[in-house]
């Protein structure tokens, strides 16, 4: 009430003053009253201003007006005044500054108009201050009831047009107001609601208007809702984030469900955990945005600062970065749905090869977490030999095998689970290191590798505890593996050499199985020989074992290590009927754990084969030497020649000579072959193997070296597959030589008998009656011989010798043809180099000359 009173009082005063301004007309009280009433009427009719309450804009427009009128100095002065005026704040200052400015403006304009007006005036009543913008010359239409007869063009006074608002800047305000109306019409739903709905959609929840549409597989605004097309499209674009979120969340919840069934491995779990972390960041952002979305969105006409509001456009800016990240996550989720373990890590790693730093950083963090279980597994495998892999995600697979095949078959690499940032060679090293630890633990019962492991870790700069390594530190991992591999390999080889005396055993095998210990072999053959001529099924291996023992004791082998001698045994191979002992006899060496990793069953079988061959060769040599013992000239044989007839003598001599020649040839062949095998093959291979043993860095190298050694022996001794023909020829030759030996035996037996007969018949008056009597006793049919006389004897001798001669000739011919065939094949061999053998056998080129086609 007081307010109103005050207002009324002020108005009264105003009226008085205004009326009294005109000095000509003394104001009467009635006039004053009337005017007062009038004034109040005016004031009560217009309550709301039509313009935006922005004092700065008004001041601007005034300034501009002044400037356009050419009063630029005044404009500057005005600007100055306005700044001072506007800076006045606090008690006592004017609050509605804009109102004051506007008032001044309008009054000045009115005055101007009044001054420039001529008689007839266009009614520019109160509607002058309301509504339409000032239209300049061009547009002059609009309000009816305008008399166009005013032609006067004045500044600020338009051509007969109702100047409804004299403020040109009101165009903007008016247009904006129109737009606001339009927007309200077009949008059934306000933007704030849409923004909130979009925010819900981006968390996978259906909003009031934005729902998930299964047919389109996306979040959409229902078509029935009337929104402008631009808004619809914007909402759709923003809801892509919601779709991606749904996908990622779906994967996470699926994995969590499957976890109890042990289908999702540790890597998969790490992946889910990393994704959930990312999503929690995302939720934080959404929470902030939701808080902001509660602020109302001001329409363009309202310039009030209503706090941080959230419009669809602002939302799209906020969503730019999360969209990129969510897209990445969705792609990864798609890729990794079917993968597990190392394969999953490798696939994610491939996606991390990206140039954009945001993507790169994001992927790096993700991979750090995803690969940590893998790196853990590698670390524990490499430093402790433990394979803690419940879900089969590691790229090393183990299977339970016997101790002797632990090295070769116990563990292998699974290429599918090998992530792409671990190279093949590194993977091999990892495999070998863990295998070595397990080997040491199981086969060698050695505990020293733990020290080696800690040393390795210290050298590589990491610890043996968990969590030492992470993704992106592949170099660190590599150095750790290399250090560990180096030390453990060295340790393993030390154990093999020192504790288990690998080298000594190899040497022992060479000496016994490969007949390196010559004197032992000689004794053995001497003792065992007669036994082995029996049929195989009558021989007892027990007896042979005893013979073996005695052979060892009588040779240098007795000074050898007891442990080694214990392992040497006789073995009778499975035989059929008709086999002689020679065919089934063999020696064997018992290599126990861990050496039977090297000397496996198949390896020992090969050694056996070589042994058989060498044994046969020795036997042949032995046979020939035995023949020599019979054949060497002695007084017994030479004495008899004097007494015989010349024809027989001649025959005898020629036979003997032929026999001798053949023996020489055979001996030459056999001894050269023997020499070749012993020195060119066995010793050379052994020295190569020794060198490689020295240079070997790990057990794999050692195994490879040993294989190479055996292979070279097998190939060079013509036992390989491609030398089958040569091998067969050789064996036929051996058989032939043995036949020869038996012939020679028979021949010399016959000669001895003949000579004993001759001696007896020719020398009756000798002093040594006792010896003669002995001789007499020995003869089977004394009467038959003596009674026949010399002629019968000669005849018999001649016949005998002739038969023998023929046999010898046959043997000789066969032998020479076979040998020729054998030698001709030697230079043709392409897989082995037999030139040394050829050289030895044919160094005088005797055979080449004999048969020029060779």
């Amino acid at each position: 009430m007081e307010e109103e009173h005050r207002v009324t009082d002020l108005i009264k005063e105003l009226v008085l003053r205004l009326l009294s301004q005109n000095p000509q007309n003394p104001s009467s009280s009635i006039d004053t009253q009337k005017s007062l009433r009038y004034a109040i009427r005016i004031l009560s009719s217009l309550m709301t201003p039509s313009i935006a309450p922005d004092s700065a804009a008004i001041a601007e427009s005034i300034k501009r007006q002044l400037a356009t009128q050419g009063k630029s100095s005044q404009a500057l002065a005005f600007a100055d005044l306005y700044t001072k005026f506007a800076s006045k704040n606090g008690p006592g200052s004017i609050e509605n500054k804009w109102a004051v400015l506007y008032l001044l403006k309008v009054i000045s304009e009115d005055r101007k108009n009044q001054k420039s007006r001529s008689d007839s005036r266009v009614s520019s009543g109160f509607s002058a201050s309301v509504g339409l913008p000032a239209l300049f010359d061009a547009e002059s239409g609009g309000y009816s009831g305008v008399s166009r007869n005013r032609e006067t063009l004045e500044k600020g006074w338009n051509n007969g047009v109702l100047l409804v608002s004299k403020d040109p800047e009101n165009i903007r305000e008016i247009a904006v107001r129109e737009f606001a109306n339009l927007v309200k019409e077009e949008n059934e739903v306000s933007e704030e609601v849409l923004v909130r709905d979009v925010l819900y959609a981006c968390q996978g929840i259906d909003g009031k208007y934005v729902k998930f549409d299964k047919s389109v597989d996306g979040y959409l605004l229902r078509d029935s809702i009337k929104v402008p097309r631009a808004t619809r499209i914007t909402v759709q674009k923003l809801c892509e984030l919601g779709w991606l979120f749904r996908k990622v969340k779906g994967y996470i919840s699926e994995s969590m469900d499957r976890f109890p069934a042990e289908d999702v491995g540790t890597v998969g779990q790490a992946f889910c955990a990393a994704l959930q972390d990312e999503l929690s960041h995302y939720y934080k952002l959404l929470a902030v945005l939701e808080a902001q979305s509660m602020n109302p969105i001001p329409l363009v006409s309202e310039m009030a600062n209503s706090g941080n509001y959230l419009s669809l456009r602002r939302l799209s800016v906020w969503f730019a970065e999360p969209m990129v990240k969510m897209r990445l996550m969705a792609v990864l989720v798609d890729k990794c749905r079917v993968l597990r373990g190392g394969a999953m890590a490798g696939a994610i790693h491939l996606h991390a090869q990206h140039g954009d730093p945001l993507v790169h950083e994001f992927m790096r963090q993700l991979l750090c977490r995803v690969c940590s279980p893998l790196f853990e597994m590698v670390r524990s495998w490499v430093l402790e030999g433990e394979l803690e892999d419940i879900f089969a995600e590691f790229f090393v697979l183990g299977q339970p095998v016997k101790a002797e095949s632990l090295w070769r078959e116990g563990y292998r690499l699974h290429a599918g689970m090998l992530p792409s940032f671990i190279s093949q060679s590194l993977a091999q090293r990892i495999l070998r290191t863990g295998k070595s630890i397990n080997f040491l633990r199981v086969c060698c019962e050695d505990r020293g590798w733990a020290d080696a492991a800690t040393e390795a870790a210290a050298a590589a700069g990491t610890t043996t505890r968990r969590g030492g390594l992470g993704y992106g530190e592949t170099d660190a991992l590599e150095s750790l593996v290399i250090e560990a591999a180096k030390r453990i390999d060295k340790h393993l080889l030390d154990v093999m050499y020192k504790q288990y005396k690998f080298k000594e055993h190899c040497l022992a095998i060479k000496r016994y199985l490969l007949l390196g210990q010559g004197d032992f072999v000689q004794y053995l053959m001497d003792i065992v020989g007669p036994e082995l001529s029996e049929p195989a099924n009558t021989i007892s291996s027990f007896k042979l074992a005893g013979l073996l023992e005695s052979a060892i004791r009588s040779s240098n082998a007795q000074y050898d290590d007891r442990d080694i001698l214990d392992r040497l045994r006789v073995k009778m191979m499975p035989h059929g009927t008709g086999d002689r002992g020679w065919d089934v006899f063999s020696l064997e060496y018992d290599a126990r754990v861990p050496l039977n990793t090297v000397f496996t069953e198949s390896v020992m079988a090969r050694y056996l084969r070589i042994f058989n061959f060498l044994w046969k060769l020795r036997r042949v040599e032995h046979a020939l030497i035995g023949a020599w013992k019979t054949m060497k000239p002695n007084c017994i044989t030479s004495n008899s020649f004097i007494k015989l007839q010349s024809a027989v003598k001649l025959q005898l001599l020629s036979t003997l000579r032929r026999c001798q020649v053949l023996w020489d040839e055979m001996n030459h062949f056999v001894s050269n072959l023997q020499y070749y095998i012993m020195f060119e093959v066995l010793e050379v291979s052994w020295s190569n193997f020794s060198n490689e043993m020295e240079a070997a860095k790990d057990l794999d190298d050692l195994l490879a070296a040993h294989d190479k050694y055996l292979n070279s022996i097998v190939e060079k001794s013509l036992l390989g597959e491609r030398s089958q023909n040569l091998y067969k020829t050789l064996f036929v030759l051996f058989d032939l030589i043995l036949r020869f030996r038996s012939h020679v035996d028979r021949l010399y037996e016959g000669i001895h008998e003949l000579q004993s007969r001759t001696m007896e018949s020719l020398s009756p008056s000798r002093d040594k009656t006792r010896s003669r009597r002995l001789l007499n006793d020995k003869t089977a049919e004394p009467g038959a011989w003596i009674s026949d006389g010399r002629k019968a004897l000669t005849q018999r001798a001649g016949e005998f010798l002739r038969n023998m001669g023929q046999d010898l000739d046959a043997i000789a011919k066969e032998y020479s043809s076979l040998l020729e065939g054998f030698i001709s094949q030697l230079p043709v061999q392409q897989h082995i180099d037999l030139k040394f053998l050829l050289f030895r056998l044919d160094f005088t080129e005797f055979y080449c000359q004999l048969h020029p086609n060779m």
Partner: protein
Amino acid sequence: MDPEAAQTARESLELAFHMSNILDTGLDRRTLSVLITLCDLGLNPEALAAVVKELRRESCSSSPMPETPSSVS
């Protein structure tokens, strides 16, 4: 009214008076202060301007030139 507020008010009035002189409104200090007070109380400045105009016209019309008051629409 404390002296500081009075000072502020005086200065504001001065500034407004200068501004009104530049704009050639023909208002004197007293009238201007009344008008400012009325504006501050929340009255529509357009309406006030209209009052000023009409009353001036009336005062002019009471002089020899007769004017028909315009209709209020």
